[in-house]
């Protein structure tokens, strides 16, 4: 990682070609443009951009690096993951007003969160350049909607650039910084997943060190009061007619395949241009069509489009992913200029406003548009592919083996009968949202960032006057809690909602790559905010922190919190497996052995009412586990050993007897996801040992749960099982 950081910080006095991801190109371009500060909230497909600056910041702040690499650590770039996109944009605006150039990075839905800041600053002024990067996600690879951020250009009246390739993105970021400084407006560069996550060749150059000198000017524009607003709106619109804007519109309206006079014209923007270029050249039809690529999409490049429209084409095709924004603008301008050429867009040859483009889709569209059959140049597909594609098992994402959220969900499964109870579980955005999928299915709602706590209180309120005054449960990750959950929680306390909030506190922003947040700051330059005192200060009367792997204690606390009338909060706190503190534990690689005495002390043997779990009970596993947990005649929570309440005694003996099937059944009796059990098990029933030839119980579980006859897995485990058994020596 340090090498990548050095690479991105290294200036090149002569052009240096490199193949980088769009997001990396964006980061480099910002550096070359002389960015002073970057403010972001992580979110796919934007995250790599901000991650680079996070590394740059760490690198440049390190005194060792400052000494070793004085050139690339001078004028360090400030970086911050703000707690949400609104604050990130607000701080970026303020930073710019303080005369330091800024960039603000977020994903599509982030712009919604930040929009209030955008919609007013345009009526005012900025100082140093301010560039906003918004990454859209047509096709919803990793987003809760596929909204089209191009609307913000029109809605906020800000210049907007829409690159088609990493090289475009690289150039446009630099243009955006320059333009922003000239017209004192934020400039938006909007990418899509296929631009941000594509690698292409980009030419690195020098890095601008004409950094802004901090300065705040008292200007009337900084005071936004209604009396001045209407005039400010007119001034804003004038800025968009500025010659620098017109120049950029011209520069970014590019003709491609323009050598021949053609009957067909295409106007396209964004990644659509990339598809067209490849397909037309691959099928040798570049002479049949002229293509105009629009890289700057707001203000609308009227002059350039009119001049293209007037070239007397028979038909013009508009290609853009998502909404018909470009198409409607072109039609409007054609109508205004009384140009009667046939214009085709959405609705033509399967072009719709949902989903993303693909080579196949655009190939079909171009064949229809050009009335040309590409089949002569096409490759021949394989035979009988359906047979090999039908019924292939899907591979949905799942919570990692060992993820503490699995333990918390198991706990919730024990505490809440999904069949018998109408209790509603309101989920939120983040890794733990995977709990909505099978096999967990422990979430009833997932919406957008921070909705869980609002959803719970709204659902509580909707049933408030009815007979069922049941508590509603909100489940929220720690990152999301700080992003927007806290505000909803304030509202819940204020309106006396009867809800339980479970914070899945895995000490990081997990989903997007383990960024810090106020509750888990990691770096000393940040102040870590402890959640329980914050909640108590806010007036939450019941706050419980649990270790989700400690099932018996956690179960008790969860039940207490459920019974509490009012707002109660349970913080299930255990590190994400990707964090160093989790990895540290694993790295100890301690050899361990089973202590037979302690093994026999688990709840299974202490609960006189329920027989040993070696008796196979396929149906009522959860209710039996639950009964055991609440049973009076059992050892205390602190003494309890197997978090999943598995009879390790029986399990262990079965393996010694060679009865692996029984062993697996014992695990599955208590744990729906037997294989995972081996991964999340933290081996409480083992003792450390110095003997090298002892296999830990965790490994035993892993090996047994991987046996082929139980799981029909014909690959490696068989051999591994053999090898493992060899090593067991007791």
């Amino acid at each position, binding site marked *: 990682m340090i*090498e990548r950081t050095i690479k991105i910080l290294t200036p090149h006095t002569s052009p240096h*070609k*490199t*193949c980088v*991801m769009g997001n990396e190109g964006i980061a480099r371009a910002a550096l070359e443009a002389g960015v002073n500060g970057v403010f972001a909230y992580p979110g*796919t497909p934007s995250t790599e951009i901000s991650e680079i600056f996070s590394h740059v910041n760490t690198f440049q702040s390190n005194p060792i690096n400052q000494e070793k690499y004085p050139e690339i650590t001078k004028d360090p770039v400030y970086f911050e993951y703000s707690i949400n996109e609104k604050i990130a944009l607000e701080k970026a605006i303020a930073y710019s007003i303080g005369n330091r150039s800024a960039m603000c990075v977020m994903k599509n839905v982030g712009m919604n969160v930040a929009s209030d800041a955008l919609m007013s600053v345009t009526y005012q002024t900025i100082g140093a350049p301010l560039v906003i990067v918004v990454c859209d996600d047509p096709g919803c*690879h*990793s987003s809760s909607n596929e909204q089209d951020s191009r609307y913000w250009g029109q809605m906020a009246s800000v210049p907007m650039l829409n690159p088609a*390739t*990493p090289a475009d993105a690289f150039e446009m970021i630099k243009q955006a910084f320059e333009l922003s400084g000239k017209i004192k407006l934020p400039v938006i560069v909007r990418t899509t997943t*296929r631009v941000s*996550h*594509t*690698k*292409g*060749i980009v030419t690195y150059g020098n890095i601008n060190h004409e950094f802004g000198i901090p300065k705040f000017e008292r200007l009337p524009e900084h005071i936004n009061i209604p009396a001045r607003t209407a005039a400010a709106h007119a001034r804003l619109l004038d800025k968009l007619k500025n010659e620098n804007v017109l120049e950029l519109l011209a520069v970014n309206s590019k003709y491609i395949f323009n050598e021949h006079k053609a009957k067909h014209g295409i106007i396209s923007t964004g990644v659509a241009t*990339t*598809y067209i*270029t*490849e397909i037309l*050249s*691959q099928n040798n039809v570049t002479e049949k069509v002229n293509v105009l690529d629009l890289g700057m999409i707001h203000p609308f490049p009227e002059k350039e489009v009119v001049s293209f429209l007037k070239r007397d084409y028979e038909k013009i095709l508009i290609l853009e992913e998502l909404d018909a924004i470009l198409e409607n603008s072109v039609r409007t301008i054609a109508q205004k200029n009384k140009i009667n050429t046939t214009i085709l867009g959405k609705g033509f040859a399967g072009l719709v406003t949902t989903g993303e483009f*693909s*080579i*196949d889709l655009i*190939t079909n569209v171009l064949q229809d548009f050009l009335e040309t059959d590409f089949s002569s140049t*096409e*490759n*021949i*597909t*394989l*035979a*009988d*592919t359906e047979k*090999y*594609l039908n*019924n*292939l*098992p*899907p*591979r*949905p*994402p*799942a*919570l*990692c083996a060992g993820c503490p959220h699995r333990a918390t969900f198991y706990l919730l499964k024990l505490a809440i009968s999904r069949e018998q109870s109408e209790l509603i579980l309101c989920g939120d955005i983040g*890794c733990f949202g*995977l709990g909505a999928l*099978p*096999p967990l299915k422990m979430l009833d709602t997932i919406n957008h960032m921070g909705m869980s706590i609002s959803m719970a209180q709204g659902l509580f309120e909707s049933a408030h006057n009815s007979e069922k005054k049941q508590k509603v449960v909100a489940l929220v990750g720690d990152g999301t809690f700080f992003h927007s959950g806290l505000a909803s929680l304030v509202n819940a306390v204020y309106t006396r909602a009867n809800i339980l909030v479970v914070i899945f506190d895995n000490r990081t922003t997990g989903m997007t*790559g383990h960024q810090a947040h106020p509750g888990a700051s990691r770096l000393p330059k940040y102040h870590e905010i402890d959640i329980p005192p914050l909640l108590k200060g806010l007036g939450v009367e019941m706050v419980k922190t649990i270790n989700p792997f400690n099932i018996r204690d956690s179960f008790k606390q969860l039940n207490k919190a459920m019974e509490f009338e009012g707002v109660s909060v349970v913080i299930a706190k255990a590190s994400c497996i*990707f964090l160093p503190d989790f990895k540290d534990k694993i790295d100890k690689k301690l050899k361990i052995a089973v202590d037979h005495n302690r093994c026999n002390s688990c709840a299974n043997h202490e609960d006189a009412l329920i027989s040993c779990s070696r008796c196979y009970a396929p149906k009522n596993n959860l209710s039996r586990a639950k009964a055991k947990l609440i049973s009076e005649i059992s050892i205390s929570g602190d003494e309890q050993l197997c978090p999943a309440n598995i009879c390790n005694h029986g399990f262990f003996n079965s393996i010694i007897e060679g009865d692996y099937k029984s062993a697996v059944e014992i695990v599955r009796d208590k744990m729906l*996801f037997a*294989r995972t059990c081996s991964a999340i098990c933290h081996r409480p029933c083992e003792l450390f040992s110095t003997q090298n030839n002892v296999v830990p119980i965790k490994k035993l579980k892993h090996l047994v749960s991987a046996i082929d006859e139980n*799981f*029909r*897995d*014909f*690959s*490696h485990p068989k051999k591994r099982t053999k090898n493992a058994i060899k090593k067991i020596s007791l």
Partner: protein
Amino acid sequence: MIKNYKILIAGVGGQGIVYLSNIIVEAAMLSGIPVSVSEIHGLSQRGGVVTSGIGLGEYCTGFYGKAGVDFLIGLEPLETQRCISYLHTRSSVVFGNYRIQPYSVNAQMAEYPDVVEFAYYLGKQCTEVAFIEHFPEEIDSVLYNVFLLGRATRMKDFPFKKEITERAIDSVVTGYYKEKTLRAFKLGLDYELNKQMV
């Protein structure tokens, strides 16, 4: 050098697909071939599907469509199979039998396809197919990707000579792992040199 050639790498998050693609990109850069790459790795850390399409040549993107992939490197057999509609009759494929079972298979709700049978099918359909049924025990599973790259380099339509690929590895991989990586590559290159599968 060839123009307009598409390589696809398919597998599961954590198998080093992006890493492998970086080596191929470096090989292209060293050869002076325009290159672009399209990766899809939404929730890879959560064990999802990862693919990386590499386009070689001017106007050639990393995006791939029906019958648009010339060379497929499959790091996981199920994910290799999922890609067959992108292959054409002149495609080459190298893939290994290192299975990572999705939840549905583990929970006995779905069946893992018959990999050997699939390998035979593919062998009949495509120009050249190499199937690694058992990876040599001396290779760490994290280096199966480079092993397959080595095996691929030996195939007749692979667009880079072994010297170029080796230089690419040398340039991309730094420090401690370089030697191990080059060794895995060599092992792949020489794997069952005298025995052509399928």
